[in-house]
């Protein structure tokens, strides 16, 4: 477990360093994710090493949102003033994104002769 945690933190650290070094807009942990994925593809041993610990962290992913979510106490006024605009933007854009995303998948699957989900 300690090795897996070390590797995950090392990937994050490398990601943060790369993002700073090249001035990329991508958050360091996202680069860390790409790095870990590349390492897992390169070596099955790495994949087996990080999977139990990493899956453990992801199992309680929702908990990790709580401290940031409590920050809403400082934004109640802003939410009140802009509530309608924010609510409309969230609802309409989520419905549109769901529709276009699934639609694009089905369309391209059909164009490329993919036989549908039963085959997978």
């Amino acid at each position, binding site marked *: 477990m300690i090795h897996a945690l070390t590797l995950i933190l090392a990937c994050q650290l490398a990601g943060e360093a790369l993002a700073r070094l090249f001035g990329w807009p991508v958050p360091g942990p996202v680069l860390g994710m790409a790095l870990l994925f590349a390492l897992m593809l390169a070596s099955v041993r790495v994949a087996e090493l990080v999977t139990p610990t990493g899956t453990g962290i992801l199992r309680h992913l929702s908990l990790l949102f709580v*401290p940031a*979510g409590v*920050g809403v106490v400082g934004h109640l006024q802003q939410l009140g003033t802009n509530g309608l605009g*924010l609510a409309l933007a969230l609802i309409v854009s989520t419905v549109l994104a*769901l529709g276009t995303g699934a639609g694009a998948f089905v369309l391209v699957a059909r164009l490329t002769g993919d036989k*549908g989900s039963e085959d997978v």
Partner: protein
Amino acid sequence: MFEFAEIWSYLAASPLIWLTATLIAYVIGDALAQAAGRAPLANPVLIAVILLAVLLWLTQTSYATYFEGAQFVHFLLGPATVALAIPLWQQRHAVRRAFLPICAALLAGSVTAVLSALVIGHALGLSPQLLATLAPKSTTAPVALGISQSLGGSPTLTAVLVILTGMIGAIVVTPLMNTLRIRDWRARGLAVGVAAHGIGTARAFQVNPQAGAFAGIGMALNAMLTAFLAPWALGLFM
């Protein structure tokens, strides 16, 4: 009563009390969500946030004091983002087989999620700072916070918008897909992962295992794509 006040002033100064309170609030939220049959509206994060917000208000505690304890939980968002490589790796064969449809759905869903939110927000007169806060709302929270911060938005407000987006996606996905007559579980899953991140993914797993796996892929890939897309899209409205 004097003794209680003394103990309270000691505890209130240490990070332990708010770290423990965060975990207790989450455990309560999770238990209530389970009791409600995992109904989309009974979101454990939402319940925990409300409980803690009320507690902070009752004890007259500032968010800065609270965060001194809660930062230990908050810190794990970074490693959790890195760990998203794991579901992506586990599904690598399915990803390779449906590579082109996945790319198309990811691009269409991600661009629509960011651009349509900005168009609507801009039209309704939201400030540039609020638009930056809104732009990454379909991305999984750890990444959304990072994007919001680097764009000059408010990460804490982004966290709330991300959670709301997840709940909206989880509620509307099944009726919407049935109306559109989209029956491919991969398409349904991927779309909800892109549009509604982890909360949408959890919902997809409840409906169909393959939809759940593809939702996880959509969430992970969208996290990377939005990091590049959001700064560009926001630039169009500045």
